[in-house]
């Protein structure tokens, strides 16, 4: 059967709306448990961060904090946001531009004793980069 033109437009319109709502619902469902929270050492120090949940930790690599383990692959350092610090451990090749005193984003999980275990380290490519919080804080001082 051929759908009557008037009905056809109605059907197409409702299909489009349905698709739009479907997209938004799917997106909200996806975001509910997959949006990684962006946290700073201060958030972790405040104790509001649940352990074993995927998140991104942002801040500066503290000067003098970088240590290498005996296996030659694991590095440990502390991330600071100017008010608090979080220890981070990472196994792998640190990216270009990763160094003490530069901005860093670590993706991973906080373990129950407060050590951040990173799966990925993103050093910011631009040397003028600062984590979004830092200028806010600098302005507040």
């Amino acid at each position, binding site marked *: 059967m051929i759908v009557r033109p008037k009905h056809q437009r109605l059907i197409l319109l409702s299909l489009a709306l349905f698709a739009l709502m479907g997209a938004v619902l*799917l*997106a909200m469902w996806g975001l509910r448990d997959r*949006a990684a929270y962006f946290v700073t050492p201060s958030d972790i120090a405040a104790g509001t961060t649940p352990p074993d949940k995927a998140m991104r930790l942002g801040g500066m690599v503290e000067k003098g904090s970088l240590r290498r383990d005996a296996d030659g692959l694991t590095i440990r350092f502390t991330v600071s946001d100017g008010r608090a610090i979080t220890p981070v451990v990472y196994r792998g090749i640190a990216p270009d531009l990763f160094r003490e005193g530069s901005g860093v984003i670590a993706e991973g999980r906080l373990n129950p004793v407060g050590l951040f275990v990173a799966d990925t380290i993103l050093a910011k490519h631009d040397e003028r980069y600062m984590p979004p919080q830092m200028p806010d804080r600098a302005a507040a001082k």
Partner: protein
Amino acid sequence: MIAEAGLAALWLAAALAALQLALALGLGGGEGREIRTVRAVALAQGLVTTIAFAALIAVFLRSDMSVLLVAENSHSQKPWLYKFAGTWGNHEGSMLLWVTVLALAGAVVAMFERRLDERTLSVSLGAQAALALGFFAFLLIASNPFERLDPVPIDGRGLNPLLQDPGLAFHPPTLYLGYVGLSVAFSIAVGGLIRREVGPAIARAMRPWVLAAWIMLTLGITAGSYWAYYELGWGGWWFWDPVENASLMPWLAATALLHSINVLAARGGLRAWTMMLALVAFSMSMVGTFLVRSGILTSVHSFAVDPTRGAFILALLALYIGGALTLFAFRVAHVKEGAPFEIVSREGGLVANNLLLSVILGIVFVGTLYPLVAEALTGEKLSVGPPYFNSVASPLALILAALMMIAPQLRWRRDSAPLLSRIAPGLLVAIAVLLAGFILFPAITWLPRLGLAVGAGLVPASFQPLFGRSLRRTPLAVWGMVLAHLGVAVAILGMASDSAFTSERLAAARPGDRIEVGPWLVEFRSVMPAVGPNWTALEAELRASRGSGVTILKPQSRYFAEPPTTTNEAAIETSWNGQLYAVVGEQDGQGRWQLRLWWKPFVTLIWLGGFLIALGGAIALLGRTLRERRQRRHVEEAFA
């Protein structure tokens, strides 16, 4: 002098855009002559903008450090290719490239568009001028690329070493041609809506421009993906970075538009929807520009810009997108009904394609903008990463690919013939691959498993439209579709193979150590210094052997003095069935070097697929252009 000439050209181009808009609004008077004037002004605007852009390239090539932009982003010791490509490796330069493409697109339409009636063309060129005018204002007021610097520094600060790659010469211009080329579809849609001429004629006029922009966008995204893959040294080919999403969103909209436009051109259906997509596609380009250029995102693409510029672009966005949607809302009731069709028909398949593409677009859009909105509303800092996009968008993309096995076999309007026999080839291959996968590779996860099955099934299915046809008489457009759909299958196979079968090794090695990765045995031989034009490097030598085949890989850790940075240069060995990818890290206290090795079976299919998709588009475009020329000649002969 050159800088001042460039700035003057930019002002002149802005004035020409204003004139073009005024003429299109009918302020010039003089019936009949106006379209020729508008065409001439559009052409002049394109030329003058190109002169401004050429002036910027000239100051970069001459390393004129008295120009602020050159001093901040270039260095006299750079190889000339990076001085040249460095022109758009910064905020102001890339915005000027953006506007140049916009103005040139307008000029090319003015010169070659003969399908639209004069009035509609005139209005469309007016819309194109209105777009250009806003972005000229943005350049002149908020990001002047020709600003002088006093006192003149001795030398510049250099270009971000990650951008010092031949890819910079091709990737941004290609991407921008696609991104901004979609403005033509936007302007023609505005013209059609204002003139109440929404019909097959508009679709036929719009189609080649959309196709051309879409080809460039596809190439740009494919090239950008490969560039990120070898340059960033993470072994990944897509990171769901907001900037990548900014190029993916217009591509999704343009792909939907490309399909719906055929329904409108061939059958007169989906009129309002196609106009909507034409508006949305370029709106997505502008949203992408806003995301990348406003400085609210930090990534390799956003060159740490002044946030006040964000407000300017946001205002432009609100004006253009809001204006276009308002126009659409007022005119949608006047758009005529299209020809009716059944649900099981080619039109029905294309509607499903459009709905799925729109849903994927919505998901990427929400995921990309959600962190910004959430931060503005609640102050909470969120980031949405690959887990979200992979788990939500990928299954939909697979459903879309599965649909591609069926829809091209359907007839226009109604299709009541039995379907099963027509989809059998693809279906059988897909099921066979799925079953073989369960037996041979029980460990892989479900998404790559389904990807392999759907990708494999789509290979025979994409050739099916050629069955039972005389191949010599098959229109080029059909060949183009076949090739593009085959490209999708190939790309999906590459993606699935990469995520299912990649093996990775991370090791701290001393010279002489051997590491196994996939079928390869890699011997770490030495680390030696190496020197390039503006860098020094530590270069590792790896001897990789597989069976009797031996190859040497030389990954580097490069040090650039201006600006002082270290980058990893991956070494990649490509063979017919995959790539061996090696990165060297730092030396530890005990003389060991960090090595990271990947064996990525069939990963090259991802980019081969992207290239095939673009090639399919190019063949379709060629076919349509030739056919049109033939028809026009027939018409002229008939009247002669």
